């Protein structure tokens, strides 16, 4: 089969696709030419796959929650079983995953073909992250357009996996957020009332239905105390927010599922624990400062509720830790994470225009990551220079 795909063969136009699948399925049999004669078994495919494994709790919970919120909104939740709720959610979420992968991997295949390179697996993670940070109501064609935009302009023009400045999944979300704001924020995008797994005609919602997320409620709250409520109007406890059966983007509602992923990523060493810890430290300490001043009700929300709201936890664990766009020096990672936490909370609480600050905070720090690294590297350089001037003085 192989010769048909090699240069000059019948199907040579598809050679990188063939190689991509071959390299994907089999371990390359190439042995080391120069340098070390043995290599660690770790490779980038395994890293990417392990991130996907870490996303599985969020994905499964997000699928269930999509069905749960749908049936809750139309008032049928009590009459059907777990598997039906989950199955409905699976079928509603699956098209988003398929569109994201089809568009993104399609572009990767084409650019690998043009550059005559091996297909790189970076999009395997991005392609799953994209649906998880979108609201379920968004039209599929928008997802396709946004994915194409970010893969081409945020990644391929920079040189492909490993060279991008911005987190590709977040660029997709930012593109949608600014291009189609009505489909990305507000009270009506987080739950789909449409009957056929998110398609078809919407059915009537229950009385008193409000699709506002807790984060949306906090942003528009007036009065002294914010009373978070679920979509049917019942009060929402901290446990609800932590467990995650609340409206929100598909994969980000369950802080519990995110924590499971975080433990997996840290235990296997795939993501930097320094970044995760420092984002939470930055966020929590900013909230404590807000609590101290407590000028309005939003500033009084305690940190254990704040970190469960919106995309903060998801961003801290899965977005800020993207090694390519984060700071690459160890000291830099602490600063990078801290600033993400601080900026995310400042945007969220002090800027009413953007209910969620996490996306903007991470994209902003993606730019500054290189600057942070620059200063860490300069510190090392200065130390060496000082050593040189000392030793010349002695001589």
């Amino acid at each position: 089969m192989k010769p048909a795909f090699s240069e000059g063969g019948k199907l040579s136009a598809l050679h990188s696709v063939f190689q991509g699948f071959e390299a994907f399925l089999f371990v390359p049999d190439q042995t080391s030419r120069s340098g070390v004669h043995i290599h660690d078994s770790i490779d980038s495919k395994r890293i990417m796959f392990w991130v996907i494994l870490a996303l599985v709790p969020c994905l499964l919970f997000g699928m269930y929650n999509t069905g749960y919120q749908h049936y809750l909104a139309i008032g049928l939740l009590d009459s059907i079983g777990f598997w039906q709720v989950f199955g409905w959610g699976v079928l509603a979420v699956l098209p988003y995953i398929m569109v994201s992968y089809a568009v993104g991997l399609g572009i990767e295949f084409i650019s690998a073909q043009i550059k005559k390179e091996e297909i790189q697996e970076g999009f395997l993670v991005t392609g799953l992250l994209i649906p998880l940070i979108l609201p379920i109501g968004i039209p599929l064609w928008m997802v396709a357009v946004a994915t194409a935009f970010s893969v081409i302009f945020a990644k391929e023009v920079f040189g492909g996996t490993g060279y991008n400045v911005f987190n590709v999944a977040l660029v997709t979300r930012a593109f949608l957020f600014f291009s189609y704001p009505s489909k990305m924020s507000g009270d009506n995008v987080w739950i789909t009332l449409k009957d056929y797994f998110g398609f078809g005609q919407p059915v009537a919602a229950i009385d008193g239905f409000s699709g506002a997320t807790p984060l949306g409620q906090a942003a528009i709250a007036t009065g002294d105390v914010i009373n978070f409520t679920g979509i049917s109007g019942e009060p929402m406890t901290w446990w609800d927010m932590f467990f995650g059966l609340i409206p929100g983007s598909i994969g980000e509602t369950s802080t519990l599922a995110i924590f499971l992923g975080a433990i997996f990523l840290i235990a296997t060493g795939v993501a930097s624990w320094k970044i995760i810890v420092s984002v939470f430290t930055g966020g929590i300490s900013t909230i404590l400062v807000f609590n101290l001043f407590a000028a309005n009700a939003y500033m009084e929300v305690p940190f254990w509720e704040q970190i469960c709201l919106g995309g903060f936890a998801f961003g801290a664990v899965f977005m800020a830790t993207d090694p390519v766009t984060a700071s690459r020096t160890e000291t830099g990672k602490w600063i990078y994470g801290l600033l993400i936490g601080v900026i995310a909370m400042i945007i969220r609480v002090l800027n009413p225009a953007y209910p969620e600050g996490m996306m903007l905070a991470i994209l902003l720090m993606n730019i500054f990551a290189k600057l942070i690294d620059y200063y860490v590297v300069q510190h090392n350089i200065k130390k060496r220079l000082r050593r040189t001037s000392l030793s010349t003085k002695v001589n």
Partner: protein
Amino acid sequence: MINVIDIKKGLDINLKGKAAPEAKSTSYFEDWSMTSSDYYGLVSKVMVREGSPVQAGTTLMIDKNHPEIRFVSAVSGTVTDIVRGDKRKLLNILVKVDLKTEFLKFPIENPLDMTGQAVKARLCEAGLWPYIKQRPYDIIANPEKKPRSIFVSGFDTAPLAPDYTYILKGQSADLQTGLNALTRLTDGAVYLSISADSLSIELLSAQKVVTCQFKGKHPAGNVGVQINHISPINKGEVVWTMNVLDVLFIGRLFNKGVVDLTRLVAVTGPEVVRPEYVRCKPGTPLRAIVDGNVHKEIPLRFVNGNALSGTRTELDGYLSAYASQLTVLHEGSEIHELAGWVMPRFRLFSSSRTYFTWLRKLLYPDRAFEADTRVLGGERALIMSGEYDKVFPMDILPEQLVRACLTEDLEKMEQLGIYEVAPEDFALCEYSCTSKIEVQRIIREALDLLKKENDD
């Protein structure tokens, strides 16, 4: 009191096939070779002809750029062939070995009674100079320069490294004389680094040197790491480095008046049937050293040195000038592993916690790992950060330095400490790199470029 330096970062790769402390001789062989490529960057000039009789210590070739640096025969016999490659580049000088080794005689002298110049001249004349290396650039030391200090590494932490305590046993006199000779070559100190748990009487009783003890994982035994912790190299400074096993050659030269390059070579690796030491000289054919002591049913790779920084050779090749270890590995090119990247791969070692190496080390701390020479992944741009840092115990930012080398940014390289490093210091970075980048090659090319630009 000796100060102990604790190396916190690093990685010990526990491979199968550590040499047992037993020494045997080689099987019978007739051909001996001086291999030009053993000496990095050498432009050689051959000083013998086919048919010339040679003794152990007879000059076979010299360095065109530094004619005082000589390369001598380790055996006595007759030159049979001078093998050249493209553009008449010298490859090997082959010698048919006599049954009994005749040594060229040198005066027996105490180096402490000699001047530095005289010691230097004697070492050059006897062909032992190439064993002294210099930093920057990790090349044979330039005899015209005066080193700030000399560093001798007295232990090896690389995978399956030979046990120096065993090799040095009973060689106190030669070791001390060799170290004495080194002290004549510098106005600064001669540092001897030993392992903190070394019980070697020979090393612990060494005089006239500053002894430093090191504790920790590989690359604690790399001289580059030791220099960085004892007294780092600054721009404009030159230090010389040497392996303590090569210091014995210098000792023998002054004590016995002969060039006796006999050493114990550890024959190691997962594919060796009985890993043990073999008494032989550099240039001995591998066939005579290995002598059938390997698993033959699979394709094998023979490495002069250790599995991380050694050089590849073939079974019909020769022992390298610097090697005191041979590693035999499974080549592995015939393995077609389906979806290996999701498999647990219990038999292979990994520094990543996505594999169960840590669990296996916990359950069976003494069970060693297999290895083959597959790259185990495709080459990518640098994706993961902090990987190099974990295995690079120097006050240098390894990833940033590698990037500066890739972009040939000379100023950045200097600023980030290129003068302090050698390719071998980056071997573990290359080993554990997720993106499978050939880091040692990148560093080597950068050092070559820098040497050319600085014109020294």
